[in-house]
């Protein structure tokens, strides 16, 4: 069996090679599709009303900032929360296992919109009834809407990702962990050096999909008065009585965001070739 050539892909592609892959990419049907898309874009720009855009630009940026903040913070916190949820389900004692499992089942089994409303309209007004809480440092935050939105997004991501990480942890081949043990690694070190990084790597392809789903879940916070990008666009529609232009703009922005996320995660995935 010939050795696998691992040097070639690491060399930068030569120009002629790039030219060849470009010709391979521009097949006739692709060229036609690109032309159709360009035509549609040109027609949109020419015939539709985009005069509102410059005036709303600052608010759109702000909304985009809120959307990104909601996404990034809920993904990071949710992922951190997902780890104990997954570990409890894989190696935890029975009561903990049961607790983690029921948390994941309840959160994944009910609509995010419902959870958000229960937290904001239910928990939020309940908390306000206690003077003890109203007097603490936390109240200026708890009386706003965004903590409830962020909280719901976070636990939802944690529940879904916890389930994925549970599968990823159980999916790491036993032999790799056994090798770590056989070389005298402690449990903690085996987890840190082998089990955890291997599980994360195995979960990366689904993690990308989950983050994009999470991005598309963020507009729900607009229903509890958080002014994210979607809320700003809704405002534009109410002010200008335009329907399609603001919505098409929204489509373009979300598409760009998910495109960037996809490329980013592909790159992370490609850094370690998977075991065969």
């Amino acid at each position, binding site marked *: *069996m010939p050795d696998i050539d*691992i040097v070639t892909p690491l060399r930068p592609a030569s120009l002629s090679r790039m030219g060849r892959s470009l010709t391979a990419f521009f097949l006739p049907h692709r060229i036609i599709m690109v032309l159709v898309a360009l035509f549609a874009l040109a027609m949109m720009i020419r015939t539709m009303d985009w005069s509102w855009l410059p005036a709303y630009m600052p608010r759109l940026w702000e909304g985009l900032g809120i959307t990104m903040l909601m996404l990034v913070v809920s993904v990071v916190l949710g992922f951190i929360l997902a780890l104990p949820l997954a570990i409890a389900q894989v190696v935890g004692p029975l009561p903990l296992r049961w607790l983690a499992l029921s948390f994941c089942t309840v959160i994944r089994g009910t609509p995010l919109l419902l959870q958000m409303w229960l937290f904001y309209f239910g928990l939020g007004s309940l908390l306000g009834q206690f003077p003890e809480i109203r007097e603490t440092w936390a109240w200026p935050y708890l009386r706003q809407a965004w903590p409830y939105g962020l909280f719901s997004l976070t636990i939802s991501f944690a529940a879904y990702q916890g389930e994925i990480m549970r599968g990823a942890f159980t999916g790491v081949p036993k032999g*790799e962990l056994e090798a770590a043990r*056989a*070389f*005298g690694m402690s449990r903690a*070190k085996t987890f840190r*050096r082998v089990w955890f990084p*291997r599980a994360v790597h195995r979960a990366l392809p689904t993690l990308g999909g989950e983050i994009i789903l999470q991005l598309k879940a963020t507009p729900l916070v607009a229903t509890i008065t958080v002014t994210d990008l979607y809320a700003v666009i809704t405002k534009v529609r109410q002010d200008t009585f335009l329907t399609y232009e603001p919505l098409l703009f929204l489509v373009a922005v979300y598409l760009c965001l998910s495109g960037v996320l996809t490329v980013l995660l592909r790159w992370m995935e490609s850094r370690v070739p998977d*075991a065969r």
Partner: protein
Amino acid sequence: MTEQPAIRVKGLRKRFNRLEVLKGIDLEARPGDVVAVIGGSGSGKSTMLRCINLLEIPSAGTISIQGEAYAMRETRQGLQPADRRQVQRIRAQLGMVFQSFNLWPHRTVLGNVTEVPVHVLGVPRDEAEARAREVLDRVGLGAKLDAWPAQLSGGQQQRAAIARVLAVDPLAMLFDEPTSALDPELVGEVLSVIRDLAQEKRTMILVTHEMAFARDVATHVVFLREGRIEEQGPPDQIFGAPKSPHLQQFISSVA
């Protein structure tokens, strides 16, 4: 100075629920010994090997490495190691080579070989890397330092796994059917590495199906059948003049 056996197994028994896999094994490997363990499938060869570094917990018996016995205590679930630290310390001195290589796929070949010295034994990184280059050269993988395990052939992976063991300079090496998962044409390259190590007088216990190889490199051969040592002795005696009818049958069936 009396020579301490590197590995001594006494009265080893292992039971999985109702099934008793090992029914009292006594085995000794002095420094420099190459003990080949042969036997049919289900005879308990691998279980015995895995008991030596406590990957399987024995049900009864004692195992000592260089005169130091594992401290065990009785629990309701049977024997359990009493001192996890001791187990980890002894394991780090016993290198194990697995049937399915078990390299860590998220580290390069070099990373796999330096992992244990750096993160278990606390060797400085540059020192560990120098040693890793040396042992990888020895197994013929000097050009594959930065390759990922998934990019290697089975034989190369197993040689990297052997280098991973050599990097910790173990007291004894345990081989668990190191060539059984390999394509036939890749077996030779792994066996030749093991042969070199045997000639270097490294202590090893080798569970194998390669009878010709066992006869060639072993100083002592052990034939296991149904959880007991049926016959043992120098390779020429075991393969040349087997006494037990089961061993005679086994040798003629695999030859």
